[in-house]
């Protein structure tokens, strides 16, 4: 179904594109919000992505790759949003994120807070790698293809992202341990 709609939209059919936008919008929003950790910026990134997708759609050579192509545009738009607000990600007071399903019970508040802070310190390209890996469940090879980067680059970004997240968690654990030890 998507293929037909994509081909119609490529020929300038705005109604077809509106259907595509409605069916892909939620997923785009979910990805952008997880990369950017900010609903407003994620909405901006999605809106920008949809407009660019409409404008550039005739240059998409394989309509079956629309979903992957759209996600690549979204990641680029998210990078742009992140660049415009570089200062926002550091020294920020982390508030609980209200999702539709509410906070996951299996992750303690301490760990959630550590992950949130660690994640916000990551550069956007490493954030995208983590979201595509742990949220979308894609392999580095699939991500590389989707984002148009070499597989080695995808592996490297994922490696550094994991290392940074692990370091963030463990540094926080040490801080907590020292703080608790000092208060005795």
């Amino acid at each position: 179904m998507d293929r037909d709609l994509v081909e119609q939209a490529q020929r300038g059919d705005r109604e077809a594109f509106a259907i595509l936008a409605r069916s892909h919008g939620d997923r785009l929003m979910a990805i952008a919000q997880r990369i950017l950790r900010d609903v407003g910026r994620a909405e901006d990134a999605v809106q920008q992505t949809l407009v660019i997708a409409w404008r550039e759609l005739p240059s998409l050579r394989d309509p079956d790759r629309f979903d992957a192509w759209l996600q690549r545009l979204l990641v680029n738009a998210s990078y742009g949003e992140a660049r415009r607000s570089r200062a926002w990600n550091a020294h920020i007071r982390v508030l609980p994120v209200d999702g539709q399903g509410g906070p996951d019970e299996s992750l303690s508040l301490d760990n959630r807070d550590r992950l949130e802070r660690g994640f916000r310190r990551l550069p956007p390209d490493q954030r995208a790698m983590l979201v595509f890996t742990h949220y979308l469940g894609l392999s580095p090879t699939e991500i590389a293809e989707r984002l148009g980067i070499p597989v080695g680059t995808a592996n490297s970004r994922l490696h550094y992202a994991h290392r940074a997240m692990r370091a963030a968690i463990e540094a926080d654990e040490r801080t907590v341990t020292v703080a608790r030890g000092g208060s005795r």
Partner: protein
Amino acid sequence: MTTQRELDRMLGDFFLDGTDELADRVLDAALDQIEDTTQRRPMWAPRRFSPMNLPLRFGMAAVIAIIAVGGALYIFRPGSSVGGPGSSVPASSAPTPAPTAQNPLIGTWTTGPTTCAQQNAALAKAGFTAAQLQSDGWDAATCAGMKHGSAFRLQFTNTLLVFYQDGVAGWTGTYQAVDGQTFKAGDSSTLYITYHYAIVGDQLTIDMVADTLPTASGGEQLGEDIAQTVIYETATFTRQP
């Protein structure tokens, strides 16, 4: 020490939370914006992938076969200096042929001075509409005061691409030859602009076919596309010694 398995589980749980719904007002805003947005027709579309009819296919195949057979006969002809018995020149002193595997783009390429009429023709050929050009402030009478220059020069090294507009360096970036008719360029580690090219003798023609790094606004992208077209597609480049 956090194991990879623990980290994977924590991150999996971490990403379960979050917004999973796009607000209607955002979707509506995007669709409203699209109402006023013209689709960009790819410059390659009308010029490439035109289906060959059957007689033309056979003709092309025949020409290729003739060239291949003729080349083989020439190389292995009796008396050929390539190791042939009739060779009077010692092999060691024979001139070394130029390496054919080298990137053919490397070098300096220039156009002569181009006219405003040529630049307008290139933009029309690439598919820009009058409305698009007008929205970018391009007036056809003066080519916006020839703001992109008149004479263009490209310098390709192994990895760098520099272009000059009327002798002034306008842009320096990196590039990579993808195959015999495609190269990609960009001004960061991402090579986001794709060009098709053809070299015939000492003549180079270039066609920008895709720009996959969206810029912040549609206006910026349009201006970028117009500039790219004027610089790369107005005239054929000639290799300089």
